[in-house]
């Protein structure tokens, strides 16, 4: 395959950025999108040019490290018929001779580091604000000691699959991280272990979400449509419910 890549190049947060055009030959349709970027970087290195910086780690679609906006859709969801991360998007999704535009996650809460790499540590701080349960961990308890209803357990599990890649923020016209925050809230709110801190958690996580400079949700649904883990829009309604209830409780409750 022969493809043309328009890639966002920006040396650092302060530098001026622009789309650069690269021609790439010898792309196999079995290559993943990241392998295509690897191929480009090998070529750039051989030509003594600066390679394109992009985030990646497991390349199995489970770590949440990779992610770029491909042809205007996070993780290239426009090109793929299945929910996918960038590393699991293969070149067979594109036509031979295709022109592909690649941009970083752009959002107020994600400051750019270099080229396609953005700083997503805002997500870590949202988790630090309350996305955990405070229990003494000892040896594993007996499995049936704390019963969890099937439906709630399933919802908790579905929401726990969020890998925190940030595609929801990149897709959102408001730069909101509500789907990410909602996934974490719903995950813990559905489990018995999450109950003691349920309402103080939602308050502190929302407070941190807003403090990080993410916008508000307008229930448009762009986030859920690009989520590689298919976190449903319903999770945001769960977050809204919990937050409304929490406001009737005192500080720290």
């Amino acid at each position, binding site marked *: 395959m022969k493809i043309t890549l328009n890639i966002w190049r920006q040396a650092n947060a*302060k530098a001026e950025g622009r789309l650069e055009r690269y021609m790439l030959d010898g792309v196999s349709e079995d290559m993943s999108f990241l392998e295509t970027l690897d191929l480009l970087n090998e070529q750039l290195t051989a030509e003594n040019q600066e390679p394109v910086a992009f985030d990646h780690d497991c390349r199995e679609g489970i770590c949440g490290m990779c992610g770029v906006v491909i042809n205007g859709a996070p993780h290239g969801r426009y090109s793929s018929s299945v929910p996918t991360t960038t590393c699991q998007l293969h070149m067979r999704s594109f036509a031979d001779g295709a022109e592909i535009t690649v941009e970083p996650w752009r959002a107020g809460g994600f400051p750019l580091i270099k080229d396609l790499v953005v700083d997503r540590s805002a997500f870590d701080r949202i988790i630090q604000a309350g996305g955990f349960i405070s229990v003494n961990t000892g040896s594993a308890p007996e499995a049936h000691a704390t019963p969890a209803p099937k439906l709630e357990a399933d919802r908790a599990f579905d929401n726990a699959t969020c890998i925190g890649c940030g595609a929801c923020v990149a897709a959102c016209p*408001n730069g909101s991280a509500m789907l990410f925050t909602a996934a974490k809230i719903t995950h813990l709110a559905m489990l018995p272990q999450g109950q003691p801190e349920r309402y103080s958690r939602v308050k502190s996580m929302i407070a941190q979400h807003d403090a990080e400079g993410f916008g508000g949700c307008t229930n448009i649904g762009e986030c859920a*449509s690009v989520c590689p883990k298919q976190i449903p829009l319903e999770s945001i309604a769960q977050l809204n419910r919990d937050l409304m209830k929490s406001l009737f409780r005192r500080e720290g409750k």
Partner: protein
Amino acid sequence: MRDLWSGPVHYTIQGVGVRAGRWSSPGHGQVKVTPVATQTLTVHQRAARSTVALKVLMAVTGIFLILFLLMHAWGNLKAFFGPEAYDHYAEWLKSDILYPLVPKGWFIWIFRVFLVACIVGHMASAYVLTLRSRAARGSYQRKDRRAQTFSARTMRWGGIILLMLLLFHLGQFTLKWFLTGFTASSTPYESVVLTFQQWYMVLLYALFVGTVCIHIRHGIWSALTTLGANTSRVARRNLNVTAIAVSALLFVGFMVMPVAVLFGGIK
């Protein structure tokens, strides 16, 4: 109260330190450095001023306004019962409601103050949230729209157009500043009939009602979702169906009377 209007205030949590900078918009090469404000509000207070809390204010005020519109559309149909019935209804709205619980003529003012409060609350929350969203979103060279509806996309500008049309509507029939074919001494029935005998007035009214209906198609769905009603895939479908059905009902409810006037059904 000041913090409600101040847009995104940036805090860091303990041990994290100062954030270096934020996204620089493409083509400008400028970097907005986030000031780290001194943390003066408690977590509960910050949650009460969050985007979600503002959305709840917007949702509740919006629902009151939609309920008012449904009642308004229903009331307009009185025109089909003739001049006496319509004028009596108009008179009743301004005098007898809740009498003798409150003196004659009081209810309409209580109701007007309530509606204006709803509109102000709705717009103020929209304004604050829009500013926060503007600061938070990124600008792409290429952006693909996947899930959003036309209605959702036009909420903000649609709302502003709606306000202009509302002011004209009030200036026309309530304050009688713009006399569109009738005189200041015309009865309510005469004002309506003389206005809508002109095709362009019907067209302008259709534009007004159409803008309302496009706005509330996303508005109903979004308000109910914000209030937590979107609990499952089925609920999501039901909420969208409700939003479309109420919008369509409202459009038909408002338009039958002017159209009947235009084609001579009401004289």
